[in-house]
């Protein structure tokens, strides 16, 4: 820099001033200690679940509901779960449903992403099928089970079809709203840097739309899981293997309320666990790197 340096000889002054300003204006962010996370984030839901269990147990203990065919004791449900675990069947039920759900979700992702981009880019297509796609989101996915069974028969393809019909609209809509919310300033800045056409989509539009897209994925998973359970409950068939939905239906057929409760608890737990393990961390990561997640 020496050869072209024609600045007046006060760089030390200016550099020092600037370093001071930077230090004063930069917000120091530190990660919260683990104890804080435990007491603020983990403890409240644990207490809430414990309270529900306590109420449930007291209904049994004080014989407010005294009919095991209507309300089984928590210990009975635990017993059914333990038995399924010891017989090595529990993980089988879970895996049957989770593998279907995740595979269906991945298929939905592959179809919905280009669809969402197409809707965002081509006005005519958006005008034509945009409203239908948003309308589909409010259609309960259980409505797709009868036609899917008639078209495809009682098999895994039918399950995937129901998942797709449930998840594709919400993922595509998420991506679409993500693209809609990209600030025009980013597009202008991108264009002055030379990011036009496909380069603009890749370097500017897609990363800028990521928060909306991830929200769509999260909702898409919830829809996939719900659709799958509807399909499994209605279309249970021995050859398909026993997933959580079939487990619920089997419990109903056997009038075994403990088994019904077992199935409901497992469906709920798996749905929450996938969200907590995959989608919530993904969403937090995306938002945090952008400074959009305000720590409280």
């Amino acid at each position: 820099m020496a050869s072209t340096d024609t600045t007046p000889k006060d760089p030390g002054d200016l550099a020092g001033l600037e370093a001071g300003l930077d230090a004063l204006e930069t917000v120091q962010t530190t990660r919260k200690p683990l104890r804080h996370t435990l007491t603020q984030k983990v403890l409240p839901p644990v207490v809430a679940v414990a309270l529900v269990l306590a109420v449930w147990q007291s209904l049994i203990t004080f014989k407010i509901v005294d009919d095991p065919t209507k309300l089984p004791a928590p210990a009975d449900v635990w017993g059914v779960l333990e038995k399924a675990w010891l017989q090595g069947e529990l993980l089988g039920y879970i895996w049957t449903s989770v593998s279907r759900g995740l595979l269906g979700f991945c298929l939905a992702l592959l179809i919905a992403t280009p669809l969402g981009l197409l809707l965002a880019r081509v006005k005519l297509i958006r005008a034509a099928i945009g409203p239908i796609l948003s309308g589909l989101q409010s259609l309960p996915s259980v409505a797709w089970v009868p036609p899917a069974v008639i078209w495809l028969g009682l098999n895994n393809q039918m399950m995937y079809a129901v998942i797709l019909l449930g998840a594709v609209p919400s993922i595509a809509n998420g991506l679409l709203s993500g693209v809609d919310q990209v600030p025009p300033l980013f597009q202008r800045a991108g264009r002055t840097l030379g990011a036009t056409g496909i380069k603009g989509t890749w370097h500017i539009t897609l990363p800028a739309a990521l928060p909306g897209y991830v929200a769509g994925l999260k909702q898409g998973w919830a829809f996939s899981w719900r659709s799958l359970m509807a399909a499994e409950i209605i279309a249970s068939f021995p050859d398909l293997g026993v997933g959580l939905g079939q487990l619920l239906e089997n419990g109903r057929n056997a009038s075994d309320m403990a088994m019904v409760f077992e199935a409901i608890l497992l469906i709920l737990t798996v749905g929450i666990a996938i969200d907590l393990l995959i989608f919530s961390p993904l969403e937090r990561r995306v938002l945090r790197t952008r400074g959009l997640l305000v720590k409280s």
Partner: protein
Amino acid sequence: MATTLAKAADGTQSATHAARIEHVSKSFAGPAGQQLVLDDISLDVAPGEFVTLLGASGCGKSTLLNLVAGLDRPTAGAVTTDGRPALMFQEHALFPWLTAGKNIELALKLRGTPKNERRERAEQLLELVRLGGAHGKRVHELSGGMRQRVALARALAQESRLLLMDEPFAALDAITRDVLHDELTRIWRETGLSVLFVTHNVREAVRLAQRVVLLSSRPGRIARQWTVDIPHPRRIEDTAVAELSVEITEQLRGEIRRHGQH
């Protein structure tokens, strides 16, 4: 860095102007039919020259800058520039999904800098705006002044001969703005860039520019130009800066008053 900067300074011989604006008019469709925003503007920016465009609201100075940047087309007349100009906005417009350094590297990538040179070049540019070591910082971790300096480094990464600046310091506090004036002057003199700088702040215009162009409002026309030959380093509180500012402010107020008279 000396080599790249020296090369940039040599590249000015080929062109006789960094930007040439010839009889440019621009009108937009408004509620009362076509509304003329810019009326027959002619202005040349010489290589290495620092020009500020000054005017009140509605003088179309940002519109003019968009025309020079190629983001919009004039209704009449022609704009020619020596290559694609770099543009800095009032908002930093840094991409929040990238770190400070990666923002600069994206600009380098889009202008075709080889992959293995990008990182080093980005570090050099951050050094130039005195933010060495900020490569891995996220945009939200930087202060307003630091963000504008990264934005300046990103604009410099384009290695354009012309830097367009649209009120880039208007949202900063007075102390930071003053420091960034010094920085911009230093970088302009080191790089030999041409700068077209839009502002509504008279003192800022006088402190920075070699030439101040005053635009009248509705429609925007060139009302008057001043050559500023106050030697650098200038300070915002210098008597010479203050005196010229008073003169220009008088003229600017005159332009604004005309709009209240009918």
